[in-house]
């Protein structure tokens, strides 16, 4: 069923993906830019378009690989954020958003300029027409006015047809003498003009942002992207050839409707009118696609906690991301109304996208090197072209950026600055993902270091229930005491969870009762810690999500161990352990212990402790935990237990008992266990049943967490869960420090220390 739905969600074939790309690509650019480009670089500006096309082709290849590996909404932003982390993610997210706003404003002014063909009007009239159309487009997308694929196809076919007719008749009419001098301003101007016209090439990104909707993406995605770059590039170069070969540079530069003026020369007023209609369709379709793309970028940023999800609320009736659309719309209107010249709008959009694509190229290389498990792109840049494509693409993007004029560079850098400031001031404090650069730099995948902090051993204990508080702190203190070499301490946390709809401050005012209960709980924790002779700090937190809040504390405190209470049962179909525990167990990088107390009503007795020792990666940490807890009470005992399946074939080297003993000794040696312990090996077919029976004699059971995916756990259950649910004693589920992505700093340090 899931597969079938997946297929149904994918409704774009090659042709649809190609037309979506073309619809955005063949936009205002080619109808407006000929005058600006000719003014800047003369007939040689056709080379600028060619350069833009080649740079885009490189980006299309890199994007195809990333998009088929990570078919998620958000396009370039998502890939960069995943590969390079939140800092660059924030830069690209804001860059794309800003770039799309500037591009939309540029398209709309171009629309206004072409209207002057019908109604002669000055700059103010053009701006008013642009404002009106922009507002209309925002409304169309806000209200979710239905657009169909058929309409989209008609527009794109009409546009391509018009341009082909324009080129076909125009070529016959080109006067070679007007093409001379070919390159009046020099190659520097040609390169700079490539930057100016790059805005006409940003549309193919739309295909990548729709990757999740494309059928057979390994074939259709790269193919449609390459086709959506090559077709317009050829058309643009030819349009420039015809334009600069028909009108003198001066006439062309003065025209605000260049393509129509050129067509007038050889197709008469009918031709000019057709071009005006084409320009109107093109500008509107490009701006429309840009506004929707911007909303997707907002959504993707919100999904990664880089932007507030408030923006991404879907309208109850229209089912559109109305806030994101309105926000984008307001900026577009402001840009149109501002005195920024149309050429500068285009250049700033180009700047943002060149920055984006340069980072996209870096991301491809990082993803290939880091090679995370869930990244398996269906399309890969062919071996002969790798790493040439991303390397050349990166350098070429930067080279064009370097040619752009000062004003544009300043505005562009300001947008990058917004991303940086946003990251430092906001995003960094949210729960965002670490990039994979560290993984790519690291000599080879390494298990994360066990002890996070260099200073004292720190145990974080989230507390919620006054009845279980004492026992949890007792276990936590045992772990702290075992690391007395530093200044071990406990950090007690309590989280007041408030619904997402309410702001944090607002809710707290109404929740005095919960706040005072929180204070009581934490005061009590201080008293207990004094009794247990262990240092304790408390943290009272109000958050929308308890799991996230606990994770933040764990990270913030550089904790070595987090001790959590656990009810010992599965809760719902979505959560294995509980909505709060799941994220903490899955994502915390330090060691974690989940403790299911035998009884909530009376103080727990540690008594006889047993650790289940298996082959799993958590066996050592389980044994360590068991030893720590056994040290709490003077009369407590410690046993290590292993379960073996009965021998299938008689000629195995060792009996099951011997194998079990070997394993236990090995693990005990690994953690250099220096206390007395009993060894017990039980043989049985059914691991679960055998384990349940064997641990019945003990008061406290330690078992390693199974680190399978949440899905397989919900489907098949897991041993720790079964024990938690059914064993009569206290059950501790232990998990070692995780192998979360290495930070860049760690990876570099590690590399240097080799």
């Amino acid at each position, binding site marked *: 069923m899931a597969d079938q739905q997946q297929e149904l969600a994918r*409704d774009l074939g090659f042709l649809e993906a190609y037309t979506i790309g073309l619809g955005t690509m063949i936009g205002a650019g080619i109808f407006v830019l000929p005058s600006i480009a000719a003014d800047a670089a003369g007939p040689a500006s056709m080379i600028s378009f060619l350069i833009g096309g080649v740079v885009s082709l490189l980006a299309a290849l890199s994007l195809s690989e990333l998009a088929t590996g990570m078919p998620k909404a958000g396009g370039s932003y998502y890939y960069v954020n995943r590969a390079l982390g939140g800092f660059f993610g924030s830069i690209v997210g804001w860059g794309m958003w800003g770039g799309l706003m500037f591009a939309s404003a540029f398209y709309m002014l171009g629309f206004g300029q072409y209207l002057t063909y019908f109604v002669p009007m000055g700059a103010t009239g053009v701006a008013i027409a642009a404002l009106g159309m922009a507002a209309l487009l925002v409304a169309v997308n806000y*209200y979710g006015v*239905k657009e169909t694929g058929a309409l989209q196809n008609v527009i794109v076919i009409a546009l391509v047809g018009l341009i082909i007719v324009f080129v076909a008749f125009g070529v016959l009419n080109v006067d070679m003498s007007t093409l001379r001098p070919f390159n009046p301003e020099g190659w520097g101007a040609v390169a700079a003009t490539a930057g100016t016209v790059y805005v006409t090439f940003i549309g193919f990104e739309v295909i990548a942002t729709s990757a999740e909707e494309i059928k057979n993406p390994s074939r259709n995605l790269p193919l449609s992207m390459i086709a959506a770059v090559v077709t317009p590039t050829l058309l643009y170069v030819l349009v420039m050839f015809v334009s600069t070969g028909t009108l003198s540079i001066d006439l062309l530069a003065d025209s605000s409707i260049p393509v129509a003026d050129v067509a007038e020369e050889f197709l008469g007023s009918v031709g000019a009118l057709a071009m005006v209609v084409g320009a109107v369709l093109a500008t509107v379709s490009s701006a*429309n696609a840009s506004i929707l793309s911007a909303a*997707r970028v907002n959504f993707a940023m919100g999904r990664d906690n880089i932007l507030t999800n408030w923006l991404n609320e879907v309208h109850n009736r229209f089912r559109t991301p109305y806030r994101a659309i309105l926000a984008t719309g307001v900026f577009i209107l402001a840009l149109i109304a501002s005195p920024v010249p149309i050429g500068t709008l285009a250049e700033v959009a180009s700047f943002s996208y060149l920055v984006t694509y340069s980072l996209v190229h870096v991301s491809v290389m990082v993803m290939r090197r880091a090679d995370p498990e869930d990244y398996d792109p269906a399309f890969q840049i062919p071996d002969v072209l790798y790493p040439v494509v991303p390397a050349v693409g990166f350098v070429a993007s930067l080279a064009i950026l370097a040619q752009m004029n000062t004003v544009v560079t300043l505005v562009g850098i300001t947008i990058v600055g917004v991303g940086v400031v946003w990251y430092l001031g906001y995003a960094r404090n949210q729960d965002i993902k670490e990039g994979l650069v560290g993984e790519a730099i690291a000599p080879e995948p390494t298990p994360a270091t066990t002890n996070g902090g260099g200073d004292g051993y720190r145990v974080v204990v989230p507390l919620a229930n006054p009845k279980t508080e004492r026992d949890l702190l007792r276990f936590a203190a045992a772990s702290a005491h075992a690391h007395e070499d530093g200044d071990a301490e406990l950090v007690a946390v309590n989280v007041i969870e408030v619904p997402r709809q309410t702001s944090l401050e607002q809710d707290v005012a109404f929740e005095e009762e919960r706040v005072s209960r929180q204070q009581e709980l934490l005061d009590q924790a201080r008293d207990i810690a004094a009794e247990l002779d262990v240092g304790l700090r408390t943290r009272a937190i109000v958050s929308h999500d308890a799991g996230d809040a606990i994770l933040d504390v764990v990270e913030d405190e550089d904790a070595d161990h987090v001790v959590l209470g656990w009810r010992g049962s599965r809760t719902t179909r979505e959560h294995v352990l509980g909505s709060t525990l799941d994220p903490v167990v899955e994502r915390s990088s330090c060691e974690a212990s989940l403790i299911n107390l035998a009884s909530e009503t009376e103080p727990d007795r540690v008594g006889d402790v047993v650790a289940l020792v298996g082959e799993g990666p958590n066996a050592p940490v389980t044994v360590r935990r068991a030893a720590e807890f056994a040290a709490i009470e003077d009369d407590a005992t410690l046993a290590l237990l292993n379960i073996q399946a009965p021998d299938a074939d008689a000629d195995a080297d060792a009996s099951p008992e011997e194998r079990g003993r070997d394993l236990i000794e090995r693990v005990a040696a690994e953690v250099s266990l220096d206390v007395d312990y009993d060894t017990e090996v039980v043989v049985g077919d059914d691991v679960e049943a055998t384990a349940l029976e064997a641990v019945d004699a003990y008061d406290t059971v330690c078992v390693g967490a199974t680190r399978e995916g949440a899905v397989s756990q919900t489907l098949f259950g897991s041993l720790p869960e079964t024990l938690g649910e059914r064993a009569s004693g206290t059950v501790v589920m232990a998990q070692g420090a995780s192998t979360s992505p290495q930070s860049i700093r760690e990876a570099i340090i590690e590399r240097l220390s080799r």
Partner: protein
Amino acid sequence: MAHKPLLDCVFVPIASVEDARATARAVTPYLRDRDATVVVGHVIEKAGGAPDKASVEQRERLAEEIFEVVDDEFANEDISHECHVRYGTDVADTIIDAADEFDADAIVFTPRGGSRWLRLLTGDVSLSLVTQSDRPVVVLPDVEEADTDG
């Protein structure tokens, strides 16, 4: 005498979170204690070639939210139900196909209101359902709106 059943197996299309709450409350009195099969569906509208208004992933999240609200509302009433997402370019057609797929006795929904203009622009799913469905369509009044109006 055996009647052809009308509400033994119903398909309940839901458009939004708000709709989820209203619809669940509206259908509850008719389905409670009847051992009925309730299939709840949310349609993600595809533009079929034009760019969608919102990304599919974003709207799949919305579907999750909707289903959670339905789960909550029905959990109190102990009405057994299942939730499904369907994708289609025409919402009404997709609902009718889904009702067919689950062999529902009827399609049950509460109308979402809205002015004539809005319906013209955004498509009138209620009208299409009533006029195009090949199986009974039961339109229930929105309980809360009726309460506040009265």
